């Protein structure tokens, strides 16, 4: 199979100009599996493989596409818990099941090859390996369809979670802090982006004023929006909305990062169907158009980025995105950045200057009306904090807002363009969507 590195698809440099396929690629369907906290290790109908098949079927059904029409599969083939997933990510050494669940594939990992066999795709000609996470893979699929590498492409992001402690295996279970980890692990067994971003977040509070708990209105709003998302974890599992008091009295995970600033790992899968704008017009559901995609992987100056670095990175992300889409901040109606940790989000909001928010303005913006029915419906998806760590709410909500099918989350302001992402300040990707191709 093609390796992702064999196909030059990234838009990860400054000054690339307007994307050559702007408005010529569309998303014609999406499908979500149920979102569970964990797989129980017994019921194969709720396994990651079964959920991924279900998500693909739903995406194809929504687009009105048959399995024979799919000629591209872009599936993230790594585990969301990463190398430190431990017992929460690896099924082995437990015994496998009957095919197609006779290896880690279908249980903890999904790749295109497994899906082709399990679902019976016959005409797939683009099925890369080494596929990155959803923040970048949507760009990979957009470029592949735009370049004609494939015409009708399923983009799949499985997020598995087994019983056991998430990311508490591998080197995180080691009694020793080796290499660069000697500088971080003694302060707590943390995954990376919490530790990396808490320092610039503290610098942010010192530079611009305010305090950590000024994030409370934002986090609470994410939970509210999550309760308006029919497929999300929170709304389906009795997770109750939190109050300001709940937030401010909650336990520190990494002072001042609170437990409600962190998303909840889940077991789920999602699929999106990308195709050419021309084909999408004849499909079953209203298409939304890809106006640009962009990726970034900025090099750290030191082991610990500071606020200046984070602001420079997010400024560059915004500049790339706006240039490639031929748009500016005032043109973006829906803004769904990333919130895996709540402390990251203000950097994106200010970098992209959505609704005129400049550096240092985020906390005051959060304190205003950011509800979906208000004038500044920030992060209308509810993100990961409102729906669980699927990393897909940002994309699905953007599609729904542009289609006018977001239900109780439908914003009352104009909804003709949407920016969505899975990204950290240093690495990830953005996608600009439009209700119209131009």
């Amino acid at each position, binding site marked *: 199979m093609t390796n992702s590195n064999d196909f030059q698809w990234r838009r990860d440099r400054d000054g690339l100009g307007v994307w050559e396929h702007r408005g010529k690629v569309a998303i014609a369907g999406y499908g979500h599996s149920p979102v569970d*906290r964990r797989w129980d290790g017994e019921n194969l109908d709720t396994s990651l493989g079964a959920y991924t098949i279900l998500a693909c079927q739903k995406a194809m059904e929504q687009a009105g596409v048959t399995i024979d029409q799919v000629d591209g599969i872009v599936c993230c083939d790594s585990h969301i818990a990463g190398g430190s997933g431990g017992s929460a990510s690896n099924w082995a050494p437990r015994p496998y099941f009957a095919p197609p669940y006779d290896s880690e594939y279908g249980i903890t990992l999904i790749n295109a090859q497994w899906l082709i066999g399990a679902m019976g795709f016959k005409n797939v000609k683009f099925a890369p390996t080494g596929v990155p996470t959803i923040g970048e893979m949507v760009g990979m699929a957009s470029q592949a369809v735009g370049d004609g590498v494939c015409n009708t492409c399923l983009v799949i992001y499985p997020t598995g979670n087994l*019983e056991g*402690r998430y990311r508490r295996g591998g080197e995180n279970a080691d009694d020793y802090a080796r290499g660069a980890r000697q500088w971080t692990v003694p302060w707590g067994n943390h995954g990376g982006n919490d530790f990396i971003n808490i320092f610039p977040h503290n610098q942010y509070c010192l530079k611009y004023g305010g305090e950590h708990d000024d994030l409370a209105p934002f986090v609470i709003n994410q939970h509210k929006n999550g309760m308006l998302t029919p497929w999300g974890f929170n709304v389906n*599992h009795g997770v*109750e909305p939190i109050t300001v008091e709940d937030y401010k009295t*909650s*336990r520190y995970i990494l002072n001042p990062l609170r437990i409600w600033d962190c998303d909840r790992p889940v077991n789920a899968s999602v699929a999106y169907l990308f195709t050419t704008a021309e084909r999408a017009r004849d499909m079953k559901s209203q298409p939304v158009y890809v106006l640009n995609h962009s990726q970034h992987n900025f090099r750290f100056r030191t082991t610990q980025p500071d606020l200046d670095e984070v602001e420079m990175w997010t400024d560059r992300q915004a500049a790339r995105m706006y240039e490639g889409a031929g748009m500016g901040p005032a043109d973006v109606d829906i803004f769904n950045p990333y919130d895996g940790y709540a402390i990251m989000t203000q950097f994106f909001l200010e970098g992209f200057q959505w609704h005129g928010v400049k550096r240092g303005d985020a906390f005051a913006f959060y304190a205003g009306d950011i509800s979906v029915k208000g004038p500044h419906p920030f992060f209308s998806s509810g993100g990961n904090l409102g729906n669980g760590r699927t990393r897909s709410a940002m994309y699905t909500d953007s599609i729904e807002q542009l289609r006018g099918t977001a239900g109780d989350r439908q914003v009352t302001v104009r909804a003709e363009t949407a920016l969505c992402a899975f990204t950290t300040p240093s690495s990830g990707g953005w996608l600009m969507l439009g209700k119209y191709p131009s």
Partner: protein
Amino acid sequence: MTKLISFDIDGTLEVGDPPGCITLDMVRAAKASGCIIGSCSDRTVSNQQRIWETAGIDMAFTVLKHQLDTVKERFPAADYYHIGDTDLDKQYAERNGFHFLLPDVEVVQLWEGGD
């Protein structure tokens, strides 16, 4: 004086996520034996209270995990126990002078054994 028993929820009680091995009937038995019982979890206090209301069990306390110290201040007891499934439970228990026990059916000896 009696024993005080604090129950973690997730990974400890049968109604937790993930479910633990401590059943609500075991909690009821602990209360019936005269122990002071309550819950100590990262779940919001209101959510903990709703669990106990639904179960019909009157708890003496429902606190956040990092506020276990307030329980000792409020309730004089001969011995304090916290039952939980993580290192964090152990850390908070030991920091606040509670005996720490992993969720296990053997913990019933705490209340079946008497004072």
